[in-house]
């Protein structure tokens, strides 16, 4: 009898969730027992955010005993399977899209499609695709950030250039920049992943989001002509000398000085680069952002790595876990945890407010309104780990020795046939 009452309470609460904190007291009545959370938000700022969320949630539900374990972010990538396998916690952190595929297939994540049917979840539409596998949703997002081309507005102004929207304009801009004795793009491929960003964009702009995802899932051979077209487009830039020299020796941070000192005009990077560039002395007048231009007639797909919460299928306190997920995605919480003094990223909830920052605002607008192709999670998250590591090595090699393309693609195809078996 009591449990039925509880369920009724939850249903009631859920339907009125949008009303927000005014109902916090009544939520508290419903939940009791233990809620075990393992989080990978181990860096100082995210850690404070996670602890803050648990404190807030705990305040709303005083009878609930929340046990939070924060695990090192890197270590969690190898520990999650163990943690979900034996004596699983109720709620865990993970990543969206193909990264969650193994855990969904192994039945370790709980299906949370019922949450996504609630009206409050309509505000999360931009990532619904990334949370969907087999027509069901398996978790909720709490933050993401945009990728795109950050450029030196002062250099563009000096050369009379404007933000390009097509590949032809992009190349024309680049030629003008090269003619002025600068490089078009800075990049540091020492740790490989930065090249993945270029591939994501050129491939999805050339062949579309669906093709890119099929490739990521191993359904398309690397030697496919459409993949070759992607590399051919990329090669146009490489042959122009658009990228800085010796980029394979720099980390992404070490490639920043080229942009800050004006030796390169732009940087395809995630929004986290802005803080570093500002530290380097670039003002918001000198720095601006544009969406990666169109190449073929396909919808814009954007890289926006999404961090997520999931419920373990073996969760002991399913009611509390679901309520916690509702709390995570609520407009108020998303605004709070993504604010400049917390994570400093984009809220996924379209109703959330974002800080007074032109890059966050442009990114939020781009992802909410102009990413109809879909949201990619970035090369090393969309592709299975092993394929991603082979793939990124190949991409780096291609950027340095574009003539090796046949060899590289054959190698990647070999890897694909072995890895996706």
């Amino acid at each position, binding site marked *: 009898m009591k449990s039925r009452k509880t369920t009724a309470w939850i249903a009631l609460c859920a339907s009125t969730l949008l009303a927000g904190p005014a109902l916090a007291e009544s939520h508290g009545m419903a939940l009791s027992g233990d809620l075990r959370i393992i989080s990978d938000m*181990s*860096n*100082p*700022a*995210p850690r404070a955010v996670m602890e803050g969320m648990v404190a807030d949630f705990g305040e709303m539900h005083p009878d609930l005993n929340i046990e939070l374990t*924060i*695990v*090192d*972010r890197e*270590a969690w990538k190898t520990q999650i399977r163990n943690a979900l396998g034996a004596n699983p916690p109720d709620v865990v952190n993970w990543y969206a899209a193909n990264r969650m595929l193994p855990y969904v297939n192994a039945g370790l994540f709980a299906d949370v499609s019922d949450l996504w049917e609630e009206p409050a979840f309509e505000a999360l539409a931009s990532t619904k695709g990334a949370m969907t596998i087999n027509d069901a949703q398996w978790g909720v997002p709490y933050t993401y950030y945009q990728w795109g081309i950050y450029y030196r507005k002062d250099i563009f102004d000096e050369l009379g250039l404007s933000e390009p929207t097509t590949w032809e304009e992009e190349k024309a801009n680049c030629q003008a920049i090269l003619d002025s004795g600068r490089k078009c793009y800075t990049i540091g491929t020492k740790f490989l992943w930065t090249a993945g960003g270029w591939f994501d964009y050129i491939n999805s702009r050339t062949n579309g989001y669906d093709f890119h995802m099929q490739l990521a899932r191993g359904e398309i051979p690397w030697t496919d002509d459409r993949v070759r077209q992607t590399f051919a487009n990329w090669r146009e830039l490489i042959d122009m000398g658009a990228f800085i020299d010796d980029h394979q020796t720099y*980390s992404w*941070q*070490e490639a*920043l*000085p*080229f942009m*800050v*000192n004006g030796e390169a005009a732009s940087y395809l990077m*995630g929004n*986290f680069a802005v*803080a*570093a*560039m500002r*530290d*380097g*002395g670039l003002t918001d007048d000198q720095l601006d952002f544009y969406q990666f231009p169109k190449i073929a007639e396909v919808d814009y797909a954007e890289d926006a790595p999404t961090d997520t919460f999931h419920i373990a299928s073996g969760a002991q306190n399913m009611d509390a876990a679901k309520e916690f997920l509702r709390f995570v995605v609520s407009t108020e919480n998303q605004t709070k945890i993504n604010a400049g003094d917390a994570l400093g990223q984009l809220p996924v909830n379209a109703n959330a407010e974002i800080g007074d920052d032109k890059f966050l605002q442009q990114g939020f607008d781009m992802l909410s309104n102009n990413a109809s192709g879909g949201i990619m999670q970035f090369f090393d998250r969309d592709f299975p780990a092993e394929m991603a590591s082979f793939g990124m090595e190949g991409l780096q090699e291609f950027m340095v020795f574009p003539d090796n393309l046949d060899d590289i693609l054959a190698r990647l195809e070999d890897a694909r046939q072995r890895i996706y078996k």
Partner: protein
Amino acid sequence: MFPTPIEKRSRAAQLSYQSLLPLALILWLLPLLAVANFSIKPESDFVNGNYWGLPSSFDLFANYGRVFFESNMPRYLLNSLLITIPTVIGAVALSAMAGFALGVYRFKGNLLIFFMFIAGNFVPFQILMVPVRDLTIDMNLYDTKTGLILFHIAFQTGFCTLFMRNFIRALPFPLIEAARVEGVAEWKIFWYVVLPLMKPALAALAVLIFTFIWNDYFWAVVLTQGPDAQPVTAGITEFNSQFRAAYHLMSAGSIVAALPPVAMFFLMQKHFIAGLTLGAVK
């Protein structure tokens, strides 16, 4: 006498020595100097590519201030002390006793046990990573200082015993025999005769183990996580955010973390020298 003291060599040799020594010293200290230089730079220098030049502004107080007052560094330093000191005491005490037993008594298997201690030193500890981690988890010692201490003691005792046993072997055995003739109990021989003679060895070993354990990174990363148990070597990475490496703060943190072993060396230098010359000037 080899090597010939530099004062007795030709003038040319002296000159080249005097000019090469500072050069070699600078070369050798370059990484340290770079870290020291990094630690007083503002973050913007790294974004601007000013790695090796002079700092654009002098941020010693800002950087070290953040290390001491706005991070978990003090806590990590305390953890390091709480891990290192018990380990030094434990490893030295155990190995002094084991070394005494192996060095003084003749019994079956003496040599075998001694060889096992030596052989233990040849096991690369990386291959123990997985079993040791599982063991600490099963014993509920994962992510605790106790777990790290116990493991360090167990692992260091092998090397320490080798050191101690050989040192005790080199002591004049008649001292022990004389005490036995007087009817002194064995533990009293250890405590009143052997241990005082071992002081230089104890001091040298303590300094050595202190630096080993203080500088340990591998096990700190494998067996602990977070500021509750992690020592300073692993904790330094906390200055990195998810996307960016804070070189200036990590450098400042590294310098702070490196000070205790250096201080330890200077404080115990006398014992080091005593230990080195003990056999020579008799």
